[in-house]
């Protein structure tokens, strides 16, 4: 069965050029790759991120890749994050103004019906190194990572091996990684589900082991597909030390608050299916991911991009992303006062019945008489909670499960996720020399 009839529109010299490129075993010489002719590649970008009324982030990134004649390449990447603004504490909004006294004695007041937030300022630096060394059909990639912020340090390494099979039409990828992180909350680590007045000093460890296996395959001359599965095991301090859970009185009004508490292990799994389809000039990218973990979160993510060529060096790529997750078993909009406390509880909206939609696009172009490619990406993200949109109706709370987290049945149904508007702009520049 022949799926692809020979194209009568492609001239012979085009075919010969393709064959020559493949004989040289260099993907860089195909098509419009003249800009990538050098041995060194510089990629830079700057992310501007802002949430309405909350956090603002500026994140510059620079990545340098040096390729050697034997196919090896070394990459070094530096990312800096400057974060300012305010983050939701997890406390429940109230019909009256809330004044809270922290463990350090300072007080903060939140207006009526507003989501209680806590101001913060942080700076993060991250370094990543990659070493790619092709050995025939096998390509191992060794990576190392280190990042540091005021209250968090991460050290990690990973090894991923790609194996080309069936005349390079199929690629099998297998890999694993390990991160050793340390969480050192400012002001000490509070005891979970307490008033936060007692704190221990020092750092808390968090270990993250991950594994992946994937298969990508050329289906036709225009179509490439892939499936990747990942498994992540986290152990250690997984609680957010600055988040709280409100205590609600008999009519649901917040009267006090406790620090949150999460389990000390989490197993996360995901399967992602991807497709890239080449039309006459344009390319359609589609990705779907299903995710589940043992905290009770399940999620679906659908991502769609369409790269539309506007000219030989100019393109526009619209992007749509849709996301939906169920809430964690111990997620709570507030704990009822006077009822025995559950084993675990968190009001972090990221563990709630969250929905998210992204709309945006990337414009790529070359400046006249200048090497390299410039990109400008602008996106809008809207997050909301299932059942919480608009009028603040109550969210859905599933029945208690049959494990230790069933003690959350004492939680009170309450509006859980306040809508968030996020805008992002990414400026990028890539050049080979």
């Amino acid at each position, binding site marked *: 069965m022949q799926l*692809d009839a020979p194209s009568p529109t492609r001239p012979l010299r*085009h*075919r010969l*050029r*393709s064959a020559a490129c*493949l004989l040289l075993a260099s*993907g860089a010489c*195909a098509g*419009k*790759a003249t800009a990538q002719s050098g041995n060194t590649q510089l990629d830079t970008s700057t*992310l501007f*991120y802002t949430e309405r009324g909350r956090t603002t982030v500026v*994140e510059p*990134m620079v*990545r340098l890749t040096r390729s050697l004649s034997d196919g090896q390449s070394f990459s070094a990447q530096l990312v800096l994050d400057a974060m300012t603004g305010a983050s939701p504490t997890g406390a429940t909004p109230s019909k009256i103004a809330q004044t809270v006294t922290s463990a350090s004695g300072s007080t903060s007041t939140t207006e009526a019906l507003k989501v209680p937030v806590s101001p*913060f300022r942080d700076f993060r630096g991250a370094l990543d190194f990659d070493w790619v060394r092709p050995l025939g059909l096998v390509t191992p990639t060794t990576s190392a*990572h280190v*990042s540091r*912020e005021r209250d*968090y340090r*991460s050290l*990690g*390494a*990973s090894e*991923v091996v790609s194996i080309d099979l*069936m*005349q390079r*039409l*199929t690629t099998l990828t297998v890999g694993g*990684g390990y*991160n050793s992180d340390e969480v050192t909350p400012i002001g000490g680590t509070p005891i979970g589900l307490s008033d936060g007045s007692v704190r221990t000093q020092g750092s808390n460890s968090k270990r993250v082991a991950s594994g*992946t296996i994937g298969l990508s395959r050329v*289906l*036709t*001359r*225009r179509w490439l*597909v892939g*499936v*990747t599965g*990942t498994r992540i095991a986290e152990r250690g301090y997984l609680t957010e030390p*600055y988040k709280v859970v409100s205590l609600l009185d008999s009519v649901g009004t917040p009267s006090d608050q406790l620090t949150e508490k999460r389990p000390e292990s989490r197993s996360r*799994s*995901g*399967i992602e299916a991807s497709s*890239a389809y080449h039309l006459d000039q344009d390319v359609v990218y589609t*990705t779907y991911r299903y*995710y589940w*973990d043992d905290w009770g*979160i*399940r999620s679906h993510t659908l991502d769609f991009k369409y790269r539309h060529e506007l000219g030989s060096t100019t393109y526009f790529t619209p992007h749509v992303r849709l*996301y939906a*997750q169920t809430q*964690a078993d111990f997620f709570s909009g507030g704990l009822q006062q006077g009822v025995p406390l559950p084993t675990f509880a968190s009001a972090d909206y*990221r*563990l709630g019945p969250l929905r*998210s939609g992204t709309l945006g696009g990337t414009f790529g172009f070359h400046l006249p008489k200048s090497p390299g490619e410039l990109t400008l990406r602008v996106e809008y993200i809207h997050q909301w909670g299932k059942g919480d949109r608009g009028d603040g109706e109550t969210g859905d709370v599933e029945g208690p499960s049959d494990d230790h987290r069933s003690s959350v049945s004492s939680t009170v149904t309450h509006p859980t996720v306040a809508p968030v508007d996020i805008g*992002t702009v*990414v400026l*990028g520049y*890539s050049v080979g020399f």
Partner: protein
Amino acid sequence: MSSHRGVLGAALLIIVIAGMNGCAAMSVHPWDRDLLAEKKMKLVPSPTERAIDDHIYFSKEGSTGGQGVGGGGCGCN
């Protein structure tokens, strides 16, 4: 749990279909791979954008992963 089996089954089905399609894929001769050799013809066309997105959504949602291993942790308040 049954939903997980369903998803895993679907993933296996895709792999099997991809494998069964081997004969068709074999018709993609080396001299017919000009489109596949283009830089934009990748499942992740821009690793830089992907890394930025992974960091954003890791800090704003309850899910992560799906592609690759390693990478940096963060406090992500």
